[in-house]
């Protein structure tokens, strides 16, 4: 049982806080007090679901802590222009991202990327071991390459390839499913996971959640 992280709840203003600076640090001296406050409020709004520290409680919402900033930016822009259209994207993020300025997107991405990563959580050790093997070796017989090729040996991600380590397993599983069914567009991934079975998905996400 994982108890609630402190989740800040400041839906007291719009997420539309245009004009904020490209800064990860709301306390930086180069921005005005108003801009600091606007950034902080936007972070707090995101924090309602994702946690102000980027570590969410409910697995519907992904951890953002230590996520790759370019990946966060890419996704927020995809929500904003509605090119990412999986069910939860439509239900939650189309609205939330609709009024974000590019500067705001950059600031949010930098902020969450700078937060300490969520720790791994253990689970079924046999499943985790199977997932680790799949992550590191892929499934050569079915032309499924190792996930580590793009996501890194420790699943920390790189640029637009997202960090997967410590992510909620149910969230990752859902993403694999919606990418495989092309509800979520992810061109590279469509080819990589087209033959991945659900059992294999469950193994690899159990591993990723554990590290």
């Amino acid at each position: 049982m994982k108890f609630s992280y402190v989740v800040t709840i400041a839906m007291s203003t719009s997420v539309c806080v245009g004009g904020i600076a490209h800064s990860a640090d709301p306390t930086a001296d180069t921005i005005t007090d108003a801009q600091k406050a606007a950034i902080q409020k936007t972070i707090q709004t995101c924090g309602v679901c994702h946690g102000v520290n980027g570590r969410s409680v409910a697995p519907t919402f992904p951890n953002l802590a230590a996520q790759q900033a370019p990946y966060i930016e890419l996704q927020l822009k995809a929500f904003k222009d509605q090119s990412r259209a999986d069910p939860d994207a439509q239900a939650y993020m189309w609205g939330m991202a609709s009024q974000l300025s590019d500067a705001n997107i950059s600031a949010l991405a930098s902020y969450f990327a700078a937060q300490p990563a969520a720790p791994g959580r253990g689970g079924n050790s046999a499943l985790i071991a199977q997932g680790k093997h799949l992550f590191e070796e892929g499934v050569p017989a079915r032309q499924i390459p190792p996930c580590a090729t793009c996501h890194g040996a420790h699943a920390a991600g790189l640029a637009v390839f997202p960090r997967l380590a410590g992510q909620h397993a149910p969230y990752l599983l859902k993403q694999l499913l919606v990418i495989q069914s092309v509800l979520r567009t992810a061109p590279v991934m469509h080819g990589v996971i087209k033959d991945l079975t659900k059992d294999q998905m469950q193994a690899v996400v159990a591993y990723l959640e554990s590290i």
Partner: protein
Amino acid sequence: MTRMRQIWSSTSLLQWLGFGLCVSVTTPGWAVPSFARQTGMACAACHTVFPELTPFGREFKLNGYVLDNIKQVTGIDTSAHQTLALNSVPPISLMAQISYTHTGAALPDSALNGALAKDGDLLFPQQVSFFYAGKIADGLGAFIQLTYDGVGDSFGFDNTDIRYAHHWSFGGSNDNSHTMIVGVTLNNNPTVQDVWNTTPAWGVPYSNSSVAPSAITSTKIDSGAGGFGQSVGGLGVYLWLDDHFYAEITDYTSAIRGGAHPLDSTQSNVVSGSAPYWRVAYEQRWERNSLSVGAFGLSANLHPGLQGAINTALAGVTDRFRDTAADVQYQFIGEDHLFTFLGTYISEHQTLNASVLDGFAANTDNNLKTLKLTGEYYYQRRIGGTIGYFSTTGGSDPLLYAPAPVTGSANSKPDINGYLLEVNYLPWLNTKLQAQYVGYQKFNGQSTNYDGSGRNASDNNTMYLLVWLNF
């Protein structure tokens, strides 16, 4: 039963006393697409299945209904302080309910002795409501409902909650940080401002028949429009700390619409001074689960005022109602499966000095105890159902609970208990098709011949079909 607008349908003294059984009109609503329009988020963000709130929905409400993701009309003064932040599109929506009610046995004709009313009643509509629900200014939001009532053929002010919320966070963004919301609510129905579905204004059943017989009495806080709902105004302050702890105190006084103003002896059940309402709750969230436990209560001194054809001055001794309640709510919100458990226990102690003096009640001290237990399940928010148990028990009082056809009590007791079964199908998130069955084991005191006119509790068993649209 909850949220019932009591409509006095008989001229018997008992019924005019305000304790008699009445035909009831529900005043649901509350899951309003104007919030979706304002936030750009689907209903599922804030509701498991409307009107039940998710943890995010609770946060949205506690923050003052102000989260917006649409273009704003803004203004600033020369000091760069914001003077206006208004949705460019007003958050307005409409709700329509069309229902059909069939009771176990037909009800007596309202004009002809010995005749029966039509067995089965279609209300087209049962209710239509207009809402302004959303942001007014930065931190300030409103939920305002105007309702056309198909039974009363009337249009009027309904549930309203206007609130201002301010958020603080302190301790940085690390694990030692804390958050706090302090809000002010101005509302017209005790518990309409609450964010859990265990309190009466938003409790189960979320909709029920407005023409089937309902209990001879209920606790003040659970009487909805038959009690304080839309007939009081209250100003309160609340605290929401670290997404866990909630505390609120709101003070109400009478704000009766229509009739004589300033209020006088021609009005009924007028609050003497003010009626404080209090609420505490603790919520824990983990993974896909949330569990809350809480308590709430209301204390009110009332002048009986007009009872039947008797006017009593709004002065002197009063009737005192002291309600104390405990509640628990559990939610599991999975990708496919959603479970909710709701439990509420209300104890009311009545000290009826005024009613005894005026001959409206026999006992000075009366009490009521209400228990409601509800389980809900939905599959993919599309199809699901509800199983519920409810009971109210209380002491006997031959004046408060006198015999009368359908509405009265032969043994002078208010006891009622029964069950609720419900199947709901939502082809879209904002559309609910409902089949509900309410069965009574005991009604107004007993199972058989409960009213002294030969009617049994099971004769009031009710099949209720509903089309509920929000758009």
